[in-house]
């Protein structure tokens, strides 16, 4: 804004009135409902929204890759480097994909041919052997020559993602689409990949659409943020300004629910919106109205237009001047219920050893990998311990051993009173039997108690109320419920007969921020009010710190650090813990690791969006 008003660069991508309808089982639904948007060369814009917001559909539409079986109906205009995409012939689209738009996918393994060496695949996309090595080196891969000769399965997830970034950037595209490129990666790798993407985008003046559900990741990377809800643009603005002062209740809700290492752990997380319902209303009203805490009569009668304010922010909300009050309300989130703890151990793991792989045969040496090496861990009654580690650290194996699902090779597991614990699984939908009503599945926990059917019904209703689900839903099948409701049902099944110990296996890792916050609140409240001990397995240090009294850090099967939650975060002892803590993205946006290049003036970008 300090610059004089110069002629703005022509946008490389310009979307006007984009509507997309997709069909499933013969029913068409509107996935994108009037998107207007511009992207300037070299600009990084984050598309933020929860699943179902349409953020991935934008990326697919740009590439002309909407699934044909969904019979996509596209209207509006997408101009990419001056060429119209809507209505383009397949041949033209292929051309565009080759030269103008490239994408970095979510799952790097799925995008590489498992039968071809990395070098051969890169050469197939038109690079010479020297260029291959040069690009591999530029993406920070050590020893490019060795990588080029390797097959994809020999690389780590982060290395594969670097290869794909090299493949995309080497084509010198005008627009790069990165659809959640780091969700499949460990936190320590995430930060490096984000830095690499941003570096390359700036160096080559490539406009980047960064699709994510995580506002903190967006904050680290993007010049501007576009918040999508239900196929419409809720808010567009400069990253820092938007995060400092959101103007749409949905952005405010995302921000309030977002937690990091600085969140207040003495009280529950602030959640503004209620859970997303299955039916998404679209029509002449604000489509956030069913969840919005600020909704007025007006909101359900007219559709709010995306209005441009003085400061360049664009918001689609009638009540945006009341959003600051809303944020103040969040700070008064309720505190946790009174907890009770006792000296007795709810779980005791003693020198647990576990290896996988073929045992020694008559003619074959043992080829076993040790997954857990001498783990000692005790959880007192009423206490919550978070077990933190990256993929492959053995944390899930330890949980399965603690649950009695897996026998350790060596060592002992003992539960208080010999009562087996209950488990909350990572994928709640998969943990419910699809052909039984959720009420029946909860009832199966009550059967051994010898209660009358009437008493069972009463207990089921109580458990459902406790987790915040309408008891009438006990007659629903899991497929009729949302993911969040399914997670609450599995919790209800676990606590309908209060267990002494609850084991949670990454219960929030697949969730959107608002849902994750609600689940953490639920589990944190329940374990305190019921006096349950809890083992909370996660790769998310911020979640671990919020939920747990103590944090145990697992690195390659060894417990490297166990301590009070705040202490582990603020003064980590083990080098591995230090690395994990340093890699957690924060909203503040003051990331030294991303300040290695001069920040470029991008203030004119909002002027383009009008």
């Amino acid at each position, binding site marked *: 804004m300090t610059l004089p008003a110069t002629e703005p660069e022509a946008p490389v991508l310009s979307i006007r009135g984009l509507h997309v309808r997709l069909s499933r089982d013969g029913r068409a639904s509107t996935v994108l409902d009037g998107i207007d948007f511009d992207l300037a060369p070299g600009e990084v814009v984050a598309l933020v929204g929860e699943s179902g917001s349409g953020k991935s559909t934008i990326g697919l539409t740009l590439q002309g890759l909407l699934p044909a079986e969904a019979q996509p109906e596209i209207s509006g205009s997408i101009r990419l480097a001056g060429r119209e995409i809507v209505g383009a012939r397949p041949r033209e689209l292929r051309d565009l994909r080759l030269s103008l738009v490239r994408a970095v996918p979510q799952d790097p393994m799925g995008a590489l041919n498992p039968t071809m060496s990395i070098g051969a695949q890169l050469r197939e996309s038109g690079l010479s052997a020297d260029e291959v090595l040069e690009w591999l080196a530029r993406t920070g891969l050590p020893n490019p020559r060795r990588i080029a000769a390797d097959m994809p399965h020999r690389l780590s997830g982060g290395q594969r993602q670097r290869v794909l970034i090299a493949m995309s950037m080497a084509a010198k595209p005008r627009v790069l689409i990165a659809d959640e490129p780091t969700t499949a990666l460990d936190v320590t790798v995430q930060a490096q990949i984000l830095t690499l993407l941003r570096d390359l985008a700036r160096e080559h003046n490539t406009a980047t659409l960064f699709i994510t559900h995580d506002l903190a990741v967006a904050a680290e990377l993007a010049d501007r943020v576009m918040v999508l809800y239900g196929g419409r643009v809720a808010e567009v603005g400069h990253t820092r300004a938007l995060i400092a002062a959101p103007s749409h209740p949905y952005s405010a809700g995302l921000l309030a629910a977002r937690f990091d290492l600085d969140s207040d752990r003495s009280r529950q997380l602030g*959640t503004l919106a209620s859970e997303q319902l299955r039916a998404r209303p679209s029509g002449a009203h604000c489509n956030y109205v069913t969840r919005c805490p600020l909704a007025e009569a007006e909101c359900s009668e007219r559709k709010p237009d995306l209005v441009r304010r003085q400061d360049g922010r664009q918001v689609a909300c009638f009540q945006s001047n009341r959003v600051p009050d809303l944020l103040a309300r969040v700070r008064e989130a309720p505190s946790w219920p009174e907890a009770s703890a006792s000296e007795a151990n709810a779980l005791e793991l003693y020198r647990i050893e576990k290896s996988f792989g073929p045992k020694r045969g008559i003619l074959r040496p043992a080829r076993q990998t040790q997954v857990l090496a001498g783990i000692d861990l005790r959880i007192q009654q009423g206490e919550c311990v978070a077990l933190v580690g990256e993929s492959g650290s053995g944390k899930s194996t330890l949980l399965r051993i603690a649950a009695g699902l897996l026998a350790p090779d060596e060592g002992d597991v003992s539960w208080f009173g010999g009562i087996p614990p*209950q488990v909350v699984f990572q994928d709640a939908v998969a*943990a419910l*039997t*699809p052909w039984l009503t959720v009420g*029946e599945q909860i009832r*199966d926990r009550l059967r051994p108690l010898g209660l009358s059917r009437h008493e069972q019904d009463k207990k089921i209703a109580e458990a459902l109320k406790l987790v915040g689900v309408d008891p009438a839903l006990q007659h*629903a099948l899991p497929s009729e419920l949302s993911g969040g409701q399914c997670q609450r049902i599995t919790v209800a099944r676990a606590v309908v007969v209060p267990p002494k110990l609850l084991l949670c296996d990454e219960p929030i890792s697949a969730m959107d921020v608002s849902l994750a916050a*609600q689940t953490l609140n639920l589990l944190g409240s329940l374990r305190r009010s019921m006096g349950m001990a809890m083992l909370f397995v996660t790769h998310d240090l911020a979640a671990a710190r919020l939920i747990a009294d103590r944090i145990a850090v697992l690195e390659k099967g060894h417990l490297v650090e166990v301590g009070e939650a705040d202490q582990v975060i603020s003064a980590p002892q083990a080098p591995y813990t230090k690395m994990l803590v340093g890699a957690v993205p924060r909203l503040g946006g003051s990331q030294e690791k991303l300040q290695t290049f001069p920040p470029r003036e991008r203030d004119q970008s909002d002027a383009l969006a009008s």
Partner: protein
Amino acid sequence: MALATELSAPTAPPAFAWLRRVGWLERIGLAGVFVITLVAIFGPFFVPYDPMLRVAAAYLPPDAAHWFGTDEIGRDLFSRVVLGVRYTWLPGLAVIGIALLIGTVIGVFAGMVGGWVDALLQRVVELFLVLPSTLIALAVVAALGPGLINTMIAITIFWWPWYARMARDEVRRIRARPHVEAARIAGVKGSRLMLRYLLPGAVPALAVAATLDVANIILTLSVISFLGLGLPAPAPELGAMTSRSVDSLTVYWWLPIIPALVIFVMSILANLAGDGIRSALRGA
């Protein structure tokens, strides 16, 4: 406040959503199977002539009075084919049903119990699978004597192991899924685990396989009848009718061709219906 969040009821999927997943060819198959079953049950009550008696001159070609013509002793071929559908279709369904029952019980039991019981039952199943099926069926019929019931027994003997193996594999697969693990942790065990948590998961695969097998059973039944080991002579079984008149193919073409065509159409429709059931169950 998460705990106070009362969630409203979900929108139920529309009725007949499963039908949308079924292609139009497959719908024809499903409708056709339904019609064939009706014809097999009720058709013989409404046929224009007694299928067992001489009603006209022999070897009349198809015309308005005798739609499919008459056979070598002047019986109405249309009436005989309708009765033949009953004698072919209903035993086919019965064989499938019995084989499915035996196979599922053994397979689910083996899959759930595992260990040496599973190993033993698997070897028994394999023993049946490696036997040359048609030969064994012929041997059984030869030993027990020709007749519909004996033919059905013979076919069932080598048909159930396929379902046993499939049910067993399905149960092993489902057993490893998180929802069964979750049910075990919740304290479900024994017959309840088997009948309510494991068996329903195996049903779709078995249902599809069984429907697709209807065509195979019809063909096998017809082959055995064709070889003269099915129903004894006067009864109009479609395979037997084709077999007896195949010599007159060049002269009285309708005698072998029409029953053979009916077998062909039934097999195709049953196959399409099997595909239809697979499509319908896919999204469920």
